[in-house]
C-alpha cells in the first residue's frame, strides 16, 4: 500500500514538475491563430487615442486589433522589424507596429496593408506589438 502512495506522490511530482517546466519555458505566443477584438482603420484608431487617451486605453489596451492603413515607413532590424501606418492627424506617424520577424521587400512606403497586433498604448503613435502582417 505504502508503495502505491509513494508512487502516486512521485508521479505527481514528475507531472507537476513537467507542467512547471513547460509553463516556465512557454514562449510568448504569436497572434497567428487569434481572432481580432477590433477591426479599424489607422486614422480612426489614432484619432481615438489623440482625442481621449485614457478612454481609448480602456477600450484597446491588450486587445488584438486589426488595423488597415498606408505604410509610412518600414524598418528592418537583424531579427525584427517595424511598420508605421499613417494617420492624417499624426506628425509623420500614426500606428507603430513591431514584428518579431523581418518584412519582405515588397512592403514599401505607400503600400496599403492590414496588420494584426496587440495594443500596448500610446506615445507619439498608437503602439501595437507582436504584430502579424495579414495582407
Amino acid at each position, binding site marked *: 500500500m505504502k508503495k502505491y502512495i509513494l508512487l502516486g506522490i512521485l508521479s505527481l511530482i514528475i507531472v507537476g514538475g513537467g507542467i512547471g517546466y513547460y509553463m*516556465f519555458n512557454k*514562449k510568448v505566443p504569436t497572434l497567428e491563430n487569434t481572432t481580432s477584438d477590433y477591426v479599424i482603420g489607422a486614422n480612426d484608431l489614432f484619432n481615438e487615442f489623440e482625442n481621449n487617451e485614457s478612454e481609448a486605453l480602456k477600450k484597446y489596451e491588450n486587445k488584438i486589433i486589426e488595423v488597415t492603413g498606408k505604410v509610412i515607413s518600414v524598418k528592418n*532590424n537583424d531579427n525584427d522589424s*517595424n511598420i*508605421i501606418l499613417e494617420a492624417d492627424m499624426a506628425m509623420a506617424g500614426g500606428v507603430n507596429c*513591431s514584428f518579431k520577424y523581418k518584412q519582405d521587400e515588397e512592403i514599401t512606403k505607400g503600400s496599403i496593408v492590414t496588420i494584426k497586433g496587440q495594443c500596448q*498604448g500610446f*506615445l507619439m503613435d498608437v503602439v501595437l*506589438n*507582436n504584430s502579424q502582417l495579414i495582407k
Partner: protein
Amino acid sequence: MKKVTLITALLCFSFGIFGQKHITRTGTIQFFSETDIENIEAINNQVSSVIDAENGEIAFSLLMKAFTFEKALMQEHFNEKYVESEKFPKAKFKGKIINFSSAELSENPKEYTIKGSLTIHGVTKEIEEKISLSKTNSNHIIGTSTFIAIPEDYEIKIPSIVRGNISKTIEIKVKMDYEKMD
C-alpha cells in the same frame, strides 16, 4: 540689394534647418539580467525620442508593456509584479547632451556625457551616463549607450524567492537612429 536679401533668406533657411529636431519612433532599448540561474533579456523597438541638434536637448519615452521577452511567464511577471505596467505605463528620460555640437558629428562615433532625469516605475532619478553619437551620409544621427540601472533605485521590488534569478544590476542598451524632422 537683391543679393543681400537672398543671402539673408538662405542664411535663415539654413539656420532653420540647423535648429531642426531629429526624431525616431522606432528606437531600440534592450535590457539584460544575467545570473548563474538564468538570463533574462527583453527588447523594445518602439521607443520615441527627439534630439535637438541645436542645443543637445534630448528626450525619450517608451511604453513598459512594449518590452517583449522570449518567455511568456517572464513578460507577465515583469509587467504585473515588477514594473507594474498598468499603474506606470511609461518610462521617460529628459535631459541634455553636455558640450554637444552638431557640427562636430561625423561618421566616427564620439562619446558625450548625457545628464538628465530618468523616470521608471513612477520614480525619477537624476542620472549621468555616456552616449556615443555619429552621423551617417544620409544625415541620420545615430546614438548608442550602454548603462547600468538598479531596480531598487526605482522602487522595483523583486521578491526574495526569485532574487537569485534576477540580477541586482540591469544592463540597458540603447540604440537610436534619428531622422531629421520634415
